[in-house]
Structures are given as structure tokens and as C-alpha cells.
């Protein structure tokens, strides 16, 4: 991960927690969490294991209550913990059926569908011929991309900005009475990661040179995103800037269904990529040829020759003009400090 993005991430990671606490209604309820927090609320509950690795066991209650999982009890996910003091816990299965009822289907809720989308995508371990792909440990699981997601609501009322739109809440209150319900529903629908945070998620793998080479990808994608205009604009905290998903997910599909650009169905395939740029939110009046712009170009002769020569030309141009100028300025300074100096005694 490039340092710049890493630092930014660090900052942004904690930003939502702070802003969310500001927006939290005073009546915000606290999930009944079966007393696990009796012990697990203390940041000190951690240890160094037999191999010298630090393990953290604490859960910050305020932050947990502002995560999308706030209504799930601890033992909804940590299903094996039935008694206290408890034994070593098994790993959480993200696809477990939980006690929450999905309101539309009235069935118990599970994330199983997300996995089917991932299986169909470039991140699935099985290829479309039913064979296991090479280096299968490189492929992401839910937890490689998701920490417990925090609410990061976005206001769309007049202008796109982070935070909750009070005007929108007013519209909710026309029909709904429970402040808690309104608060959660608003968050549920509008919560979005910041473009740089999304990039940060992908950076773990897509900036790892060894992985990129192993899989025959042509670019450290997050690095090159950060180098080009889109990534740079995203650094200035604007929500409208396209993130990885805006380009790599076909409109209306699950964000988990990204395809390789070699697949003709991919949004980024040669045929389709013109449509990415010209969507109504981005460059509606542009010609589809705009898609020739190298969104992932690096300063690299084989990957992007045009950009390479363009940059070299400008280096030479600037350097070529300035170097002689510097020489002249230098001579001028010398003369000012030593007005009477001369070489070889010439008068």
C-alpha cells in the first residue's frame, strides 16, 4: 500500500466513528449483548501467544453499536460460546443463518448469496470450467475485505456529502415514529465507504507486487489509481469521485460480482468500458472514446508507452529550459558577490 493512501486510510478509518457519534441520537439503544462485554470491553484484554504474536480480544461497545451488526447479539456470530468462562472459540462463519428475520422474505437472514456472487466473479476460487484456480490462498474471503462495517451515512438531499441529511429524516418522520428505526434505516440505505477506504481494502492484494505478478495482472491497481486523476481527486475527500466499484461493477449488479476485463461481460471489457465514462453521473456528454484514457497507467514503458514518452518529454522540456537558466542565475550571483573578480587577471 502506498504510504500516502495508508496514512489517509488511517485517518479516515477513525473519522466515521467520530462523526457517527456526533450524529447519534441520544436515545440510541445498546444491544443486549449477553454480558460478553463484562470482560471484552477492556482494551487491555489481549495477550501475546506462544509464537510471540499479539492477539487482541477487546470490542469497543460504542463502535460496535454503530456498526451494521449492532442488532446481532455476540453469540449470533460466535455461536459456539454457550457458557462463561468460555473455552477457545472457533472461527466465525460469516454465512451462518442468524436470528434476525429478513423482512421481505420473512426467512432467517444469511449472507449466503454474497458468496454465490463471489464464486461467479473473478475473485471466486473455482473457474468457469469447474476447476480450482491456481494460488487459491490469494483469493479474498469476506474478512479479507470487510472489518465490522461502521455506518458512514451519506447525504444526497441537495449535495452529496458525508453525514446525515436532516431534511431527509424529516421526510421519514412523516410516516415513522421510532427515532431508532429512522436512524437505522437511513444508515442502512445510505452507508457507503469512502473511495479511498475501498481502495485500501483492495490494496492488501492489488498493491502486492508478488501477488500481482503471480496472477499476471498488468498493474499494482491501487497504486496506479492513486497516481491518476481519479485517485488524486479522491484524496480530496469528494464522494463523487469514482472508486474501484463504480468502474468494475456493472450497473445494478452485486458489488461482489467483478469480472476480469478479458471477459466480454465485464464492465471494463473493451466493448463495454466506453459506457463507464459516459454515465449520467460522470462525463455524460463525452464520447465513448474517452475510455481510451489509461485509468491504471503507470510510468512504465511496456505497460503504458504513450504516457511514458509524454512524461519523459515534459521532464526533458522543463529540465532543458531550467538547467541553462540556473547556470545563468548562478553566474549572476557570483558576479554580485564578487563584482571585481576576474579569471586569469584579465582587466
Amino acid at each position, binding site marked *: 500500500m502506498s504510504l500516502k493512501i495508508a496514512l489517509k486510510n488511517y485517518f479516515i*478509518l*477513525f473519522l466515521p*466513528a467520530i462523526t457517527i457519534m456526533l450524529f447519534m441520537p441520544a436515545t440510541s439503544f*445498546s444491544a443486549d449483548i449477553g*454480558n460478553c462485554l*463484562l*470482560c471484552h*470491553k*477492556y*482494551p*487491555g*484484554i*489481549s*495477550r*501475546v*501467544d*506462544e509464537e510471540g*504474536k*499479539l*492477539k*487482541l*480480544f*477487546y*470490542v*469497543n*461497545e460504542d*463502535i*460496535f453499536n454503530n*456498526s451494521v451488526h449492532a442488532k446481532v447479539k455476540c453469540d449470533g456470530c460466535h455461536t459456539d460460546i454457550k*457458557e*462463561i*468462562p468460555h473455552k477457545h472459540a472457533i472461527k*466465525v462463519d460469516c454465512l451462518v443463518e442468524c436470528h434476525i428475520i429478513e423482512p421481505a422474505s420473512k426467512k432467517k437472514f444469511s449472507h449466503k448469496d454474497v458468496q454465490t456472487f463471489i464464486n461467479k466473479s473473478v475473485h471466486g476460487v473455482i473457474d468457469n470450467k469447474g476447476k480450482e484456480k491456481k494460488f487459491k490462498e490469494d483469493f479474498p474471503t469476506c*474478512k*479479507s475485505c470487510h*472489518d*465490522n462495517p*461502521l455506518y458512514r451515512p451519506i447525504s444526497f438531499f441537495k449535495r452529496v456529502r458525508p453525514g446525515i441529511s436532516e431534511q431527509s429524516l424529516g421526510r421519514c418522520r412523516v410516516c415513522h415514529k421510532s427515532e431508532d428505526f429512522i436512524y437505522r434505516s437511513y444508515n442502512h440505505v445510505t452507508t457507503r465507504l469512502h473511495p479511498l477506504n475501498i481502495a485500501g481494502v483492495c490494496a*492488501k492484494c492489488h498493491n502486492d507486487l508478488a501477488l500481482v505478478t503471480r496472477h499476471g495482472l498488468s498493474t499494482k491497481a491501487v497504486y496506479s489509481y492513486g*497516481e491518476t486523476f481519479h485517485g488524486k481527486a479522491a484524496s480530496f475527500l469528494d464522494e463523487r469521485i469514482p472508486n474501484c466499484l463504480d468502474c468494475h461493477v456493472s450497473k445494478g449488479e452485486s458489488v461482489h460480482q467483478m469480472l476480469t476485463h478479458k471477459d466480454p461481460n465485464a464492465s471494463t471489457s473493451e466493448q463495454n468500458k466506453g459506457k463507464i465514462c459516459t454515465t449520467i453521473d460522470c462525463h455524460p456528454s463525452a464520447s465513448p472514446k474517452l475510455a481510451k484514457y489509461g485509468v491504471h497507467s*503507470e*510510468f512504465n514503458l511496456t505497460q503504458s508507452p504513450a504516457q511514458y514518452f509524454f*512524461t*519523459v518529454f515534459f*521532464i526533458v522540456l*522543463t*529540465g532543458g529550459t*531550467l*538547467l541553462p*537558466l*540556473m547556470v545563468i*542565475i548562478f553566474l549572476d*550571483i557570483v*558576479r*554580485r558577490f564578487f*563584482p*571585481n573578480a576576474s579569471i586569469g587577471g584579465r582587466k
Partner: protein
Amino acid sequence: MPGEPKRLEHPKSVYLIGFIFKIITLTVMIAVIYQITFSPHGPAVLVPIQKKIAEGQKSAILDEVKKHEEYEKHRHFHNIVEYPQLPENMRPVCYICHSNYPHSKNKKVRALLNMHTQFFVCETCHIEPKKGMDVIYKWYNPYDPNPKGPFFGTSYDPETGNLIEVSDYFSKIAPYFVKGDKYESAIQIQDSALAQDYAKVKDQLTPEQRDNVKKKFHINIKPKGHECKVCHSKKSILEFKKLGFTPNRTVDIQQLNITGLVTKYEKFYIPNLFK
């Protein structure tokens, strides 16, 4: 033609403008040089040398520890918050060699013991009582000789039922020896004479000498800390009221009142723990 050199007779403003222009050119020049030498957008002619230097200073241990910390944040899934830390020289001497997570041997309680280092200094549990000298426990804050609180974990927020939020991150309960009507701190911090001296010479000591010094730091320290029931009982060595704990919080700490714990206590660390 001979005589005064004319070229020095410019008006003052010319020098100012000249100066500004020089700064600008110099800045652009530095940018160009950076572009050519180190920037990832340029030919990066000096990057191989930079890499070689970095390689010489690289530490495999440091790299691995950092990588693991990063990994652990994500493996943990629940989001991590950073807490403020004391600067090195304000910490008790134990932290020269131990961390906030010193306990690892006893599997059942290691993480819980580490948890207590958040509100206790080590000596609170590890102190060896001196003959004829009473020990009392008070809040200790390295920045403030008389910390007023409210302190961490001493009362509940009536609205949420959680522990109250506090702005005092550094106060911990620490032991004091009673000398007449004076209290003498039973702990040492890192700018004490012994600690500073040790920091100065530790690289010159032989392993045997270092072992000796280690013993010096462990004077008055017993290898096993207090048992749970020393505090978590009605006969607690801590005077909860004086320490500022509210009555309902005191009862909870004394009884550790959750059904699972009380009925299953015999499986836990020490029998009779929660009686």
C-alpha cells in the same frame, strides 16, 4: 570606462524581484531533480541506491512485527481504536523490559490479568509486603500528584448502564507505603536514577551482569501476583469507597455478578474465587 562598476546601481526593488524569481526557479529545479532521481513518475535513476541503503538498515524482526500488527487489526474484525500512551520516560520501570501484556503462562487467566494492567500498575498485584509497613492503594497519575478523577471504571452511566466515559486516561491504582502520616510511593518510574543508569550502560553489560541488574528491579516484587479473591471479595484489599467507586459498582466488582461465572467458578482459576 574604468572606475566604479555600474552593474551594482540597480534600484532595491530589482533585488527583491530577482530574489523571488530565484526562489521560484530553485523550487522548480528541485522538483525536476526529484522527478529524475526518486519520483515513481520518472526514470528513478537514484532509486536503486536508495534501496540498497534501506536494505542495510532493514530489520526482519521489525518488519515482521509491523506486518503482524497490521494483520491483527483486520483479523480481529471488530474495529480497533487507538488509546493514548504514556511517553517512555514517564512509565514505571517495569516497562523497560515488560509490556502491558506480560502474562502468558496461565492460559485461563493470562488475558484477564493483562486486562488489569490497564487500571493497575504492576506492583498493585506483585508487591512483596515489607515487614512492619502498611500498604494502601491510591490513584496514581504521572502528570498529576493529586489526581481528582472521575477515574476509569468507578461508576456506571445511569442512562446506558455502561461504565462512564472519562477524560483521565493515565491514572492507575498504585500501592503506597504508609510512613507515619506520610505516604511513600512503592513504584519507580523510568526517570529514576537506577533506570536511567541502566539505560545508559545496558549495552555494555555481560549477560551475567544483566541478570544481576534484573534482580535489582525485582526487589519487592513477588513472582506471582495477588489472587483474584484478594480484591474480588468483601474482604478486598482495595478500599473501593475511598478510591471513588460507587456502591453499585463496588458490589459488582466484589461479586463479579454474572450467573455463568458464579456457578462455573470451580472451573476457573482459583476455587472459591467468587464466594
